[in-house]
């Protein structure tokens, strides 16, 4: 069953938490709601579940309008951030709870609960109580408790935020494989970009109760469409520019970021939305920045800005550097094995003309050869 949210609005104490939100999740899709705290992710999930009643708008699960139905009538499975296991019931009884509600025969309950416990490797823990389980085990029980009743949709509210990195990865794999096996429409709330990439078929980025962008994870991370999304996914280099000349394949843009000592001209791949004189925000991923020593000759095809390394920070396989460039601040993420610069060292900050991506606020459309931003 797919999910359709139509013009959903919700206010708390006069403050809008969801603003006219529209979202269509297709049947069998693993959809991730990504965003910072206070963006409206959990409220959206709770509205789908019926735990929070929207002020305006409609919720459809499949063809059923469930807008006015209470949670118990919506045929959903919900996994909570804090697991919300019943502390007075054993693992078996926790998982069997939803089946007992449906008055299924004890023999069938035993078989079905056993099957799901086996699926997540928890057969030996069937008689334990929640306080005797580890965080990962609790989350597995919470997951199969939601799945065992075979709901039409599965909703998960930051289910892995309390787990360590290793357990998180294992459970994410298990979750994805179970979801694919059952083909269940799933909505997953997280603020973790890694989880969004790993799990989502599509990702919606929520900010202040509005969806900023809906995209596949790859497309979202390669081509953020708004400044908020770009910053949220870590593409911190935003150049505020004006198109001053358009050639056959390239355009010349004048960068006017606040703090710049003097305007800076850069070459940018020509996008159909470009018009002479148009103000546009351009985003450059830190991974696409190339650093060269000040005394090195730079490839003429690259844009180059003189800069100075302010600080550097190890981040796994990458070194993240903050660079002062002509009065603005740029960020670079360079593979550790090729990073050979010191703090306060003068460098050339280089990037290819096809690296800056316009934050036009519109979805990219796929063509046979490339994704391009279209006019209108």
């Amino acid at each position, binding site marked *: 069953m797919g999910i359709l949210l139509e013009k959903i609005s919700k206010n708390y104490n006069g403050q809008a938490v969801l603003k006219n939100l529209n979202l269509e999740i297709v049947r069998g899709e693993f959809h991730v709601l990504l965003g910072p705290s206070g963006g409206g992710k959990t409220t959206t999930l709770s509205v789908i579940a019926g735990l929070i009643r929207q002020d305006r708008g409609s919720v459809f699960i499949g063809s059923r309008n469930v807008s006015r139905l209470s949670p118990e009538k919506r045929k959903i499975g919900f996994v909570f951030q804090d697991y919300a296991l019943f502390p007075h019931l054993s693992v078996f009884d926790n998982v069997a*709870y939803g089946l007992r509600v449906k008055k299924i025969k004890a023999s069938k309950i035993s078989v079905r609960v056993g099957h799901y416990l086996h699926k997540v490797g928890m057969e030996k823990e069937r008689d334990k109580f929640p306080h005797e389980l580890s965080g990962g085990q609790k989350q597995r029980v919470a997951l199969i408790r939601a799945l065992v009743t075979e709901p039409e949709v599965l909703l998960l509210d930051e289910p892995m935020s309390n787990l360590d990195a290793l357990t998180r990865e294992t459970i994410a794999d298990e979750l994805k494989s179970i979801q694919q096996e059952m083909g269940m429409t799933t909505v997953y709330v997280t603020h973790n970009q890694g989880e969004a990439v790993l799990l989502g078929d599509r990702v919606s980025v929520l900010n202040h109760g509005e969806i900023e962008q809906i995209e596949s994870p790859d497309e979202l991370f390669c081509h953020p469409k708004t400044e908020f999304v770009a910053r949220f996914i870590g593409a911190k280099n935003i150049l505020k520019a004006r198109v001053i000349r358009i050639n056959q394949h390239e355009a010349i843009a004048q960068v006017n970021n606040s703090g710049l000592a003097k305007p800076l001209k850069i070459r940018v791949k020509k996008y159909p939305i470009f018009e002479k004189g148009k103000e546009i925000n351009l985003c450059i991923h830190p991974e696409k920045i190339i650093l060269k020593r000040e005394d090195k000759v730079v490839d003429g095809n690259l844009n180059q800005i003189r800069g100075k390394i302010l600080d550097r920070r190890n981040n796994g396989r990458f070194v993240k550097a903050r660079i002062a460039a002509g009065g603005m601040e740029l960020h670079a993420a360079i593979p550790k094995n090729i990073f050979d610069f010191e703090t306060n060292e003068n460098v050339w900050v280089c990037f290819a003309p096809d690296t800056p991506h316009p934050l036009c606020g519109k979805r990219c459309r796929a063509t046979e050869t490339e994704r391009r931003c279209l006019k209108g």
Partner: protein
Amino acid sequence: MKGIAFDLAVSLIAAVFVCLLTLPIFALFTATSFVELVNQFSSPLVLSAIVISLETSLIVVFLALCLGLPVAYLLATKQFRGKEILDTLVDLPISMPPLVAGLALLILLGGNSKLGGLLNNCGIDLIFSKKGIIIAQLFVSSPFLIKSARGAFESINNNVIDASLTLGASKFYTFKKVLLPLAKNGIYAGMVMTWARALGEFGATSMVAGCIPYKTETMTVAIYHNVMSGELGSSVAIALLLTIFSFTSLLIFKSRIRGQTAVIV
């Protein structure tokens, strides 16, 4: 040195307070002999008072459970207009002098009132009867159950309740299978405190039900009545029994409260 002096002063003051609490109980235990105690407990008047007290207080606990649990659930889980007023009303009998409570009930239920007259016409006589004792005890003691049960309901994680609903359970099923089991220790503690308070009730009970031997004379009323008529022996026997009941109920209450915090994880 100053630290030691402070500790010493605090310990001395605490010792004085402990004496204040224990000496009267000690005096009570030494005011009679074992033989005298056995004699008193075989007296029909004393036995009658004990039976009436136990009977009425246990009925009160049952009624407080039936009437108080829904109120506790409402106060713990719902937001509604007038909640503050209801909350204050629940607390009122605790701060209200029992004699005032008794007088109010007497005025409401007495033969001269409309309600009292109506009940009399239906053959229900509440004043100077066991039913009157039950109503008086219920009035003054039920807030203990409501407050304890409310605290227990409030301590339950809301997500656990929501989890039950999303698994298809109705609100009633969730109340029965999740809320009640998780709040049971708090409810038990409230029942024990309600029972102890009902057992020890004197002011409202004597005002509404009087002190008719073998009919409305509860243990506390019997103590007062016997002391006034110079029969100290039976008063001491009943008082000792009440003290043991109080001590036991407090022990149960404390163990249940500890259990409550252990269950809510």
